[in-house]
């Protein structure tokens, strides 16, 4: 399994670098296709949203209630445009508090 980890890392790093490097080195003209520009513009939002939900619900080891609390706290903080770190800490704090409460009542 160990050699396999390094193969994974090589593929990850190689693909990621090529994506960053090729447009800088090869293309000096601007993208003009409105579809392609729009697609690239929407990609990060679609991708991050798909990664976040529903995965956030099942991330805490105690299950969905803590996950939902973390989601709610993160949504509120993000809606108020807090920094990345602040939003993350709110989410973690909510999970922590809910899990402690569940321990006490459960």
């Amino acid at each position: 399994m160990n050699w396999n980890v390094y193969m994974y890392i090589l593929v990850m790093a190689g693909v990621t670098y090529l994506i960053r490097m090729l447009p800088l080195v090869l293309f000096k003209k601007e993208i003009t296709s409105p579809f392609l520009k729009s697609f690239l513009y929407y990609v990060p939002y679609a991708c991050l949203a798909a990664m976040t939900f529903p995965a956030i619900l099942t991330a805490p080891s105690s299950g969905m209630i803590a996950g939902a609390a973390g989601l709610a706290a993160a949504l509120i903080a993000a809606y108020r445009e807090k920094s990345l770190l602040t939003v993350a800490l709110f989410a973690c704090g909510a999970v922590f508090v809910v899990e402690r409460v569940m321990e006490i009542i459960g």
Partner: protein
Amino acid sequence: MEQKINKQQFMRGLHDGVPIALGYFAVSFTFGMMAVSGGLSVWQATLISLTNLTSAGQFAGLDIMIACGSLWEMALTQLIINLRYSLMSFSLSQKLERNLAPWHRFAVAFGMTDEIFGVSASQPGRLNPFYNYGAMSVAVPGWTFGTLAGAIAGNIMPGFLASALSVAIYGMFLAVIIPPAKKHRAVQKVVVGAMAVSTLFACTPVLNKVSSGFVIIITTLAVAGMAAYFCPIEDGEEEDA
């Protein structure tokens, strides 16, 4: 003379890179913890951060490693998740100073992250690559040593803390996508649509057998593709999002 300007630009980038590095440290700390709890060694986790320098891609890649996915799945997932960097590289390739030695473009590319792109794109006039090198000189160690610290701490991390920190990365993703979703209806539809599609994959029999990497790829292609078709962005709109 030119050397002096390059040095000034380097210092300026270094200065702007410090808050980026601090933010990176916290995120990549989480990555290091998750990587060792998924079975990777401290060294492997640190090597991933040093060579990849990207948050979403690394977390998705880690999932694939833990699930023993194929190398194709790994390559495709990285391609889809990190595709946005090509747009940033396109953009900076217009902005970089003319007549640079070719190696500068190869070096700037390595540090093309959301945050470094953000600060360098906001520099007035043409971009001096030494500005990027300054930012990278603190951001890359911040990212790498964050993972190292998290990987070391992960081995001794109590369960309750690990459980709370497991949502940190999702909190950061929400902090990236929610503010633009407030301002742009199309982005809002993309966010809600992508969450709905990935939920469909998680809850539907048969579909829930599809690995998480491919769910992200399929969801992203479908939702971003539909949005680009039905709600193409106007010129200049991407700057204020």
